[in-house]
């Protein structure tokens, strides 16, 4: 049965699934790295993704338009991270505690809202999910075509965002300033630039991306919202940022690694290999711990990550 996994068709389908599954965590991790480079450790990604998944789904259902749904998810993510930003940047509340509170808020609010809005319905309605969008010509290339160029629009966007974020962080003025805040905020403050304004921008962008990442799970994938459906992907995004050493290229590699495990798991179940599915499902979480054991956290983290900036 293991040999079943080694035929070309299966390999192509595992790789294509890897790319597809990487999409939501890639959005979230790229947003998070922007915030973390600005010294803000937003641990509320899981809850933010949940709100994005829920609001995106609800808005698509109410309006019948996926575009409106995506815009609503971006907004939901931005609002969640605005709450976070006010609490940690302006009020200087502990970032870890606030992040945890945000997760609980996202989980509680989305579950309650779902139950309140659809209490008199037998079954929660589904939406029409986004279809795949094969790139002309490129998708006809054998192997590479179906793996890379027969995906949904959001997947292309997520992968395109990798070089964009890299260019922004490492080749733009604002990106340099954001990285400076993560290492030495005082230097920027002394020059008369607002540390808080840049942190707000970075955190809200990060939250909007997490909202979009969450929306991928409903609008581009399952058509339904289920309570706590993000199921740890927000936390994996945090692991991916650390494992990727806070650099977009390596973050992409780390995201692909974790989604490969997930894709493989689906396929192993598909061909009927008799490993209990619980072990397969736990695999990414075990791998996350191992990845963090190998790549120690302190090494490349921004020096002021998680520390609120206070003027003396």
């Amino acid at each position: 049965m293991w040999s079943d996994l080694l035929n070309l068709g299966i390999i192509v389908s595992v790789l294509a699934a890897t790319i597809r599954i990487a999409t939501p965590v890639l959005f979230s991790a790229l947003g998070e790295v922007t915030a973390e480079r600005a010294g803000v450790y937003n641990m509320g990604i899981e809850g933010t993704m949940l709100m994005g998944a829920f609001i995106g789904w609800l808005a698509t259902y109410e309006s019948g338009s996926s575009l409106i749904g995506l815009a609503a998810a971006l907004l939901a993510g931005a609002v969640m991270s605005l709450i976070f930003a006010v609490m940690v940047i302006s009020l200087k509340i502990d970032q870890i505690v606030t992040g945890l509170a945000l997760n609980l808020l996202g989980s509680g609010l989305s579950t309650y809202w779902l139950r309140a809005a659809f209490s008199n319905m037998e079954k929660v309605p589904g939406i029409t999910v986004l279809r795949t969008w094969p790139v002309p010509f490129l998708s006809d290339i054998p192997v590479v075509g179906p793996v890379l160029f027969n995906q949904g629009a959001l997947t292309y966007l997520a992968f395109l965002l990798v070089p964009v974020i890299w260019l922004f962080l490492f080749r733009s003025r604002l990106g340099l300033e954001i990285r400076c805040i993560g290492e030495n905020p005082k230097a920027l403050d002394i020059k008369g630039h607002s540390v808080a304004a840049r942190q707000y921008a970075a955190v809200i962008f990060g939250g909007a991306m997490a909202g979009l990442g969450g929306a991928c799970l409903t609008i581009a994938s399952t058509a339904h919202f289920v309570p706590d459906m993000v199921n740890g992907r927000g936390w994996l995004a945090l692991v991916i940022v650390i494992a990727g050493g806070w650099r977009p290229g390596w973050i992409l590699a780390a995201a692909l690694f974790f989604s490969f495990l997930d894709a493989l798991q689906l396929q192993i179940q598909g061909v009927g290999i008799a490993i209990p599915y619980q072990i397969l499902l736990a695999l990414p979480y075990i791998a996350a711990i191992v990845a963090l054991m190998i790549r120690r956290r302190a090494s490349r983290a921004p020096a002021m990550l998680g520390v609120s900036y206070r003027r003396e």
Partner: protein
Amino acid sequence: MAITAVMGYRIERRSTRSPFAWALALVLAGACALLVCAGLFIAAGADPWQAFAALLKGGLGSKRAIAETMVKATPLILTGLACTIAFRARLWNIGAEGQVFAGAMFAYWCQSALGDAPAPVQIAMIVIGALIGGALLGGLAGILKARFQVDEVISTVMLNYIIVYALSLLLQNGPWTEAGSFFEQTAMVPDAAQLPVILAKTRLHLGFLFALVAAAVVHVMLLRSSLGYEIRAAGSNLRALEFQGVKITRLIIVVMAISGAVAGLAGAFEVYGVQHRLKSGTLGGLGYTGIIIAILGQLRPIGVVAAALVFGVLLNGATLMQIKSGVPSALIYAVEAIILMFFLIAWAASEFRLRRLHHVE
């Protein structure tokens, strides 16, 4: 210092907090949460007064309701204490959630090996098993942090997911599955292993008293023992502690193990005091709520007990609220998070004060 003077007043940071700051923050947070809550009731199309009344009646309306509130508070006292111990040392143990499962599982494993032992032996075994199970999972996260510098927040969250899959593995056509059952659950535990009910005609069980004892023990441990001193010192100044010759790596592992052990009790008491069988899905959320309880209780055992009892009212009253006013009981989880956020904000704001500026001639 930024000068933000409006009409002769200025916001300043206090050097010390007034003793009433905590109480004030709590009242303000409660009031704000009530307002948001009323908004959510109206959004759900319910009459807020009716919903609040049902919530309170369900939680405190009769002797039975109060006893059930205490039943709901029992695991929350324990997970709140677990978080308190770790948070005091600035170790962010988010793993009480998983340690609850580990405690329940290990207790079940130990107790089911006993056969027909008398009740006191069974209950002693349950307590010991729960402590060990929780300590193992908490200690594992401690080792990962102390020896491999793995951030404890992330490792404990990952372990939370892993342990739930492990339980599912054991319960689904596994060695613990109840014979002939379709559900992921064990058979009922024997009567001798069930925690005795301490108030007739209610579900209030011995675990509640154990939880209060645990709170007293943690209080004494934190304030009177040398370990408690080290925990508090680790929370305020780790470097100084290191200079005193305390082995920080050992301390991290010990604190995480103790924190896990206390959370483990919560799981075992739920299984042997309330459910009377181990099943997947009924232990979820206890650990995450414990984080809120610990913070609202200001990381003090007495505060934790008080906060857990208040949350017990909410959780217990939610059922009647759903029946009477149609508001989904899932509201409580949103409300818990909202209370926490407002409390954090009010607490941070209490650090500041409005002061009238004096004119300097």
